[in-house]
């Protein structure tokens, strides 16, 4: 008996309509825990080498963790994985809400989708009943309206994921939506779902889950919930949620502004967490069993009409607000809503739009080519670009490819300000004076994403502006000192093991990362649920194994993958930040190389960033070492 897990993998071949249920292998649970670990191993094992991400042979995997769905804090997380249409390599995305728990209550730890449905369809799951049903009526509809319509038809007890027109049209950064504002946002997961002709998955589960010590878990789960809410940071952090970081990111000069031309947005106080609370928020919104609801559901009134929207959370504020320089939180919320309904990842969509605006500003793309002038700070320009992109109409067909491919096609120097790594657009932290954060972006397995290792705090702590320097200088703000480069690899690697571990367990990391909920609680909860004694270090060792595996997957799948895949865009190594707290700073190519050299050595990878045979064997991936040697 596998305690904690539902015990079954549900595999659906959408081409043939074949449904297969197989027992969850015990060694998969033992060696990879769940969630992200399941995604990584199943992708490695089951995807045929060099599979086209949009082909029926690609997989879309939805995986829960052993803690998902249990009565313990923030157990509502669900993990998605595929071969990315954005990067061609390993891809995953993590989503809050209620879908994963419902999938487990229906009896499934993993939903593995392959093939392509002959016509637009949705997958209906109610406990043992699994059916592929027609969805022509919703094809072309928005992600939010589709969820609302399906809920009306099936009942509110069904938990639903949907895609919008962007997913249907294979926009390479389309997302999967859930619960009217939660997304598996990154890496083009929604485009793969669209390529499978799958509009939605609706699941209802009424079963229970086997727990090793149910009485112990009940007591521990309840006390853990209370302990999280008693943390000293709870009252200060929860009211604004992630949007509360906006002021600080500007204070330290890391806020993406005008397509990352600079790192400080003078209008940030119009789009910060206080603005969300004061001008938008109706209610807090949390995921399953969440003690710290960071979602802010609200109403935005703009000249284009009123919309109800969850958020904006920080990343959407940074990229739609700062990077496209919108003037008010209402405008940011409106753009957020447009993305949600179209099924676009707000981060990549905002990044692509900002790139197009800069192309127009520099005369690289004309109004005739774009269809109209598009300018920073103009909501109409942004909404125009978003709609064209989702529909792949006109200029949108180019933008739907993402900034890496679009800039390669447009040329004329636009590659230098196509802000991405590996083909995935950059998230909300400008890092020209943050070497740890820069290294984290460079080496994140999915591309330029912050949630593998968020090292900006370490950068600020370790900057030359130490507290002693500040005291002697009699100040603590204004211009940032140039950060020291070197010595960042260790903390970045540690973070790359910690943060993704939560995506394996199936719980949210915010209680640990932001409020300091201690690791001992997770060790105990894991034992009470699964009956397996694993220390935090044991769990981190699994996370390290997964890190090497996802790297190996991209080495196997992407031609020429290696060191050159890890560099940031030329802007960050050639253009000093023009103004703000980090004015004058940038990281030279030599400094970037120093970061990579240190990192590869610490990881046990060769100079080209390829995991060595010895390293793979050390972490229990001898078969992967053999496969890479044969490629």
């Amino acid at each position: 008996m596998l305690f904690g897990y539902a015990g079954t993998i549900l595999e659906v071949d959408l081409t043939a309509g074949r449904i297969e249920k197989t027992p969850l292998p015990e060694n998969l649970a033992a060696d990879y825990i769940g969630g992200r670990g399941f995604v990584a191993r199943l992708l490695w094992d089951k995807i045929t080498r060099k599979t086209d991400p949009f082909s029926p042979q690609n997989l879309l995997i939805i995986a829960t963790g052993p803690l998902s769905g249990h009565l313990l804090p923030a157990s509502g997380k669900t993990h998605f994985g595929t071969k990315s249409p954005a990067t061609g390599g390993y891809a995953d995305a993590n989503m809050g809400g209620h879908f994963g728990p419902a999938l487990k209550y229906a009896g499934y730890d993993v939903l593995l989708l392959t093939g392509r449905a002959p016509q637009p369809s949705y997958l209906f799951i109610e406990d043992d009943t699994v059916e592929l049903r027609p969805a022509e009526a919703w094809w072309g509809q928005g992600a939010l309206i589709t969820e609302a319509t399906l809920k009306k038809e099936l009942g509110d007890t069904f938990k639903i994921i949907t895609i919008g027109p962007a997913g249907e049209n294979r926009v390479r950064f389309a997302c999967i939506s859930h619960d009217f504002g939660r997304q598996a946002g990154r890496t083009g997961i929604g485009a793969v779902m669209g390529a499978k002709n799958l509009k939605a998955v609706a699941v209802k589960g009424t079963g229970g889950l086997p727990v090793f010590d149910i009485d112990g878990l009940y007591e521990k789960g309840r006390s853990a919930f209370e302990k999280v809410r008693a943390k000293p940071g709870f009252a200060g952090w929860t009211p604004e949620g992630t949007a509360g970081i906006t002021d600080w990111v500007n204070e330290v000069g890391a806020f993406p502004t005008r397509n990352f031309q600079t790192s400080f947005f003078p209008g940030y106080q119009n789009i910060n967490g206080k603005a969300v609370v004061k001008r938008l928020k109706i209610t807090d919104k949390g995921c399953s069993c969440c003690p710290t609801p960071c979602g802010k559901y609200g109403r935005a009134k703009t000249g284009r009409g009123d919309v109800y929207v969850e958020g904006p959370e920080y990343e959407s504020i940074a990229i739609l607000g700062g990077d496209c320089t919108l003037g008010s939180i209402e405008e940011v919320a409106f753009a957020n809503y447009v993305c949600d309904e179209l099924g676009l990842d707000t981060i990549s969509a905002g990044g692509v739009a900002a790139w197009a605006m800069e192309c127009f500003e520099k005369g690289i793309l004309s109004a005739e080519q774009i269809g109209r002038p598009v300018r920073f700070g103009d909501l109409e320009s942004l909404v125009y670009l978003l709609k064209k992109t989702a529909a792949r109409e006109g200029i949108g067909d180019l933008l739907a490819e993402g900034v890496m491919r679009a800039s390669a096609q447009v040329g004329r120097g636009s590659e230098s300000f196509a802000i991405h790594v590996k083909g995935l657009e950059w998230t909300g932290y400008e890092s020209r004076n943050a070497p740890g954060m820069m290294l984290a972006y460079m080496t994140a397995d999915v591309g330029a994403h912050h949630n593998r290792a968020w090292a900006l705090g370490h950068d600020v702590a370790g900057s030359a502006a130490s507290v002693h320097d500040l005291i002697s200088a009699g100040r603590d703000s204004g211009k940032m000192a140039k950060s020291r480069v070197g010595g960042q690899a260790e903390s970045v690697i540690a973070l790359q093991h910690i943060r993704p571990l939560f995506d394996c367990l199936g719980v949210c990391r915010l209680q640990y990362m932001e409020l300091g909920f201690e690791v001992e609680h997770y060790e105990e909860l894991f034992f009470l649920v699964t009956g397996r004694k694993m220390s935090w270090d044991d769990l981190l060792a699994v996370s390290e194994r997964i890190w090497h595996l996802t790297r190996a997957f991209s080495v196997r799948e992407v031609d020429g993958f290696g060191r050159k895949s890890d560099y940031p865009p030329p802007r960050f190594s050639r253009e000093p930040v023009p103004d703000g707290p980090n004015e004058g700073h940038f990281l030279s190519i030599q400094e970037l190389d120093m970061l990579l050299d240190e990192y590869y050595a610490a990881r046990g990878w060769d100079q080209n960033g390829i995991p060595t045979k010895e390293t793979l064997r050390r972490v229990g991936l001898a078969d992967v070492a053999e496969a890479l040697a044969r490629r």
Partner: protein
Amino acid sequence: MRITLHLSGGLKAVLSHLPEEMSLQLERPASLREILMRAGINPLLVMVVTVDGQRGNKDQVIDHDAEITLIGPMAGG
């Protein structure tokens, strides 16, 4: 004046050399920035402060016994 500083999760990770709770004795009113520097904490590392449970700011002058919680930077979204 007796000032008690509590470090939240994010800050504990970054300032691992400091205890989770610290007490300071102040002889005169001081801004939170000054208090933080005296405690050996770079004010730039503090994202949010609460003073006696109420949201405060780093320029706020503290002139009485106070319980101050320091919330460090965090990743969003």
